[in-house]
């Protein structure tokens, strides 16, 4: 009997130990969980931040990606202030109170704001106030207000058209997907595009693969033909809800009678 009682106690202790280890394991695993955008991390994503400066009519625009992990916010922005380049962003979100610092290397810009209730991605996030003491980018103190727009990721199929200045209109369809948010100043784009209407007299585009980059609402697309050659580079902008992309294209000469083409590109998702 004494032996059976001891055995039961050992079994109970073993279960307690196993449960404890499981709890610790789950806790440790949670520490390393990913930082992909979710409703609990509303700041993770692609942002376009506009600083409206006091006493200066022209705004500063910063674009790039933020990553939120708990109350910590990190990322990188293409700088729109007096110093050009890409600068790191760091900050905190405590409750609804947001504090960000954009490092321009020449000086830091401090942004504070309040996150409105239920602000999801793809909506305008009414920002707050910014300030910066005089530094290497501007030798005067700067203040003003800021606002930020979250740009919905580009994803999925599209249809659209290339409207040429001389070669008519070419209907197109395809897919375009945005790479993961790594907290960089931009994310990659990849996809395909195919002409769906009757080919024009000059077949500049039949089918192509697409690579590109996106930062804020600014997009660049590179189109590569079936033989891998670059056939067009298209600067474009995307709407903040990710539903529409507009750009201008230039096709190079492909024959003595087809000496190149320019026009506008309009894509709609899906």
């Amino acid at each position: 009997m004494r032996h059976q009682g001891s055995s039961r106690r050992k079994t109970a202790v073993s279960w307690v130990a196993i449960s404890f280890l499981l709890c610790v394991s789950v806790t440790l695993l949670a520490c390393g969980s990913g930082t992909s955008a979710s409703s609990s991390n509303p700041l993770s994503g692609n942002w376009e931040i506009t600083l409206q400066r006091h006493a200066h009519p022209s705004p500063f625009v910063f674009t790039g990606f933020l990553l939120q992990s708990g109350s910590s916010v990190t990322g990188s922005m293409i700088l729109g202030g007096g110093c050009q380049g890409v600068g790191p962003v760091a900050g905190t979100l405590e409750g609804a109170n947001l504090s960000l610092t954009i490092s321009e290397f020449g000086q830091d810009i401090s942004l504070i704001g309040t996150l409105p209730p239920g602000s999801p991605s793809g909506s305008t996030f009414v920002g707050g106030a910014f300030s910066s003491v005089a530094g290497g980018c501007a030798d005067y103190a700067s203040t003003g207000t800021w606002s930020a727009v979250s740009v919905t990721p580009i994803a999925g199929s599209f249809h659209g058209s290339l409207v040429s200045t001389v070669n008519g209109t070419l209907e197109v369809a395809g897919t375009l997907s945005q790479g993961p948010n790594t907290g960089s100043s931009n994310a990659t784009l990849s996809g395909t595009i195919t002409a769906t209407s009757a080919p024009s007299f000059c077949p500049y585009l039949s089918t192509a693969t697409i690579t590109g980059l996106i930062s804020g609402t600014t997009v660049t697309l590179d189109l590569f033909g079936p033989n891998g050659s670059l056939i067009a580079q298209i600067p474009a902008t995307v709407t903040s809800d990710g539903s529409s992309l507009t750009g201008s294209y230039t096709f190079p000469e492909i024959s003595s009678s087809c000496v190149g083409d320019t026009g506008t590109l309009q894509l709609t998702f899906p």
Partner: protein
Amino acid sequence: MRAITALSLVLLMTLTACGKGTGTSVGNFAGNWQMTLQRDQTNTASTLKTESGFLEQSGGALTGNLLLTGDTYCAGVGSAQGQVSGSNVAISLNQIGQTINLTGSLGSTGSISGTYSILASPCGSTQVGTWTATQVQALTGNLQGTFTSTQTSGVVYQVAGSVTQAANTGGSAANLSGSMTSTNAPCFSSVSISGSISGTSAVFNLLSSEGVSIGQFYGTTTIDASTITGSYNFLNSQPPPLNGCEDFGTAVVTVKQ
């Protein structure tokens, strides 16, 4: 149970040990600093460099970010790493394009003095010199001020309010927040303050209740953060009810903790 208790004690002791210093008495270098670097063999204001910003201290280790301005081709924010031994300090500032090495010691008044060196870099030739640093007290307290218009002669008005400096996070600047009212100001009766301070440089962003930036005040604070002397401007082109109003001038604001 004894084993679990013993294990818990070991874990507790291990965790408690984390972050402990070395036991050696070290000076306190954490805070907001205003530094002046004077190149050797010169003695003019045009050859002064300034560094401003915040240092954090953990035991004998210093980290932070400082803003370099003045006599340099490479103004900007650089990270700081340093070591403290007793009252002596060595700091390496990784500025854009150059590294500035500082060594010095904490004096009885709480200021630091020492020597610095910069090796030749795209920012300039090798140079050495001396430096001093003064810790700036937190800009927190009730404020009162006098604004004197330059735009409209004879217009002088008083302000009152409060300002609070945010915690030291080791950045080149810390946030300021607060509010300010006036009964005789031409451009506002009540504004909220959102600003920054780095060393002795402070800037207030003056915001309406709608969150619109209607004015700014920027200046230099004394090291005890009791007085800020500077300039202000209101350039509010907003329609009613914000009612546009323009004014600029000088201001002196006192802060009492």
